């Protein structure tokens, strides 16, 4: 992808982020913090690339360590969000 395409995607994503976050109900701001934490660990993509790259062992081990850290976040983040969200219930009628 060329730079301007990437920039376009970024700019539009910022608009989307702005609107989508403002539309989150305040009651769910804590789960929001947890889930953004989980998705920001998409950086694991970089860690996996490093871990798969041949030739430079140092980079590989750093990649593996990064993958451990990121996946703690991914699994932990989604799991704790799921745990919180499971608690929000409507009145039974």
């Amino acid at each position, binding site marked *: *992808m060329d730079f301007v395409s990437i920039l376009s995607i970024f700019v539009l994503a910022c608009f989307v982020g702005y609107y989508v976050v403002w539309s989150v109900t305040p009651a769910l701001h804590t789960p*929001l913090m947890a889930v953004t934490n989980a998705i920001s660990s998409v950086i694991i993509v*970089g860690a996996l690339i490093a871990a798969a790259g041949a030739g430079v062992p*140092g980079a590989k081990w750093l990649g593996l360590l990064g993958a451990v*850290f990121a996946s703690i976040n991914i699994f932990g983040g989604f799991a704790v969000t799921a745990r919180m969200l499971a608690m929000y219930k*409507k009145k039974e009628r």
Partner: protein
Amino acid sequence: MHEAAATSPWVAFAYLVSGVFFILALRGLSSPATSRRGNRFGMAGMAIAVVTTLVTHVPLSPGSALDGYRLGLDGVALVEILAAIGIGAAIGIVTARRIAMTAMPQLVAAFHSLVGMAAVLVAVAAFLNPTAFGIADAAGSILQVSRIELILGLAIGAITFSGSVIAFLKLNGSMSGAPILLPGRHLINIALALAIVVFAVGFWSGEHAVDFWLVLGLAFIIGFLLIVPIGGADMPVIVSMLNSYSGWAAAAMGFTLGNSAMIITGALVGSSGAILSYIMCRAMNRSFLSVIVGGFGGGDGAAGGAAAIDRPWKRGSAEDAAFLMAEAESVIIVPGYGMAVAQAQHALREMADQLKAKGVKVSYAIHPVAGRMPGHMNVLLAEANVPYDEVFELDEINSEFGQADVAFVIGANDVTNPAAKTDKSSPIYGMPVLDVEKAKTVLFIKRSMGGVGYAGVDNELFYRDNTMMLLADAKKMVEEINRSID
């Protein structure tokens, strides 16, 4: 070879789908009813991103690239990768299961530090092995534009890491919440920031390793120095700010890799953190700058401060409270930080149940910054099975205190302080507050007349005629009230 695979339109498409799923994940949070589906979208998006990367970046054993993927597969490396994910998954899931809901602020801070560290590790790995990331030119040196993105990701990641570690320690009580104010700290920070910029420019122009490592080291230090002077109670704003940073770090790496999932995520997380910080600052009526500069909020009302104990006030007992509420037509419960500390949410729910059984109308009023993180009270009440349609935001319920018989304030203080409306000299002047004083009777649970809230100011409500103070630990007091209602 990897790059050829990575630029296939299908791969780019998969990352786009992953990014869209992340948008849908946050979109789901617009109401509790859709939130669980949203979370599943998030998981699916992450699965797509991870699987796509695993498939397009299969580890190959050296020299075997010519044989094609299948033959040259480096099995050991693949197992190592899966093991890394597995280890992370195990730690993550166990932590998520075990953590107490009251410890959410710490947990979020701890998780942020891991994102920051992961970003640092990825940036270093990309620096060591640029070819694997497809950012090297023919001569093996890193493309100039990629150098900028790399050094940005590195610095932001490092600041996120060390800042979040301090935030975690303060929130967890492992370190004093009091602001630690070094003399001349603003000068030191400015000098450090300038140095980082200088070395970053150096790396950009010359690709010298020493510049790279210096940026890394200084960024760690500045993250530490920036957060240490900030009081424990301001930490939620900081955690949110660091959350935003971790988003921008992911976006920077996304630019490096031309990966739309990372870019979209970065923008989402970056906006989310920034907006939450803004919401908190606005609800506290403080400028973001004043939070960043630090020195505010010694933490947890330990100060004791300016309470004017010579004014007369009324003390009530659990029996008085039980009697008043059982006779009332409507009760509005106002929970605050003290409820979280005392873990009183379950007892409170029982109390509400008993009152409802007696025909009393019970509702909950949540101030946007009640507690110590956004939505904190809502999660705790949800944990105690309070249905979310009995829980109201400030705007929705504030006009109803006038018709309520009892406002039951449990561990909240600042968010009820009328000084915010009247006293221009008060540090919380201008912050929107709950109009509890308009209720016929105000019941106030706190442990002592001396203890103040986060803002460290006295609350004139304690001395009003229609106020009754219930001095005790919140959980114990509510349990006693529960025994007295029959």
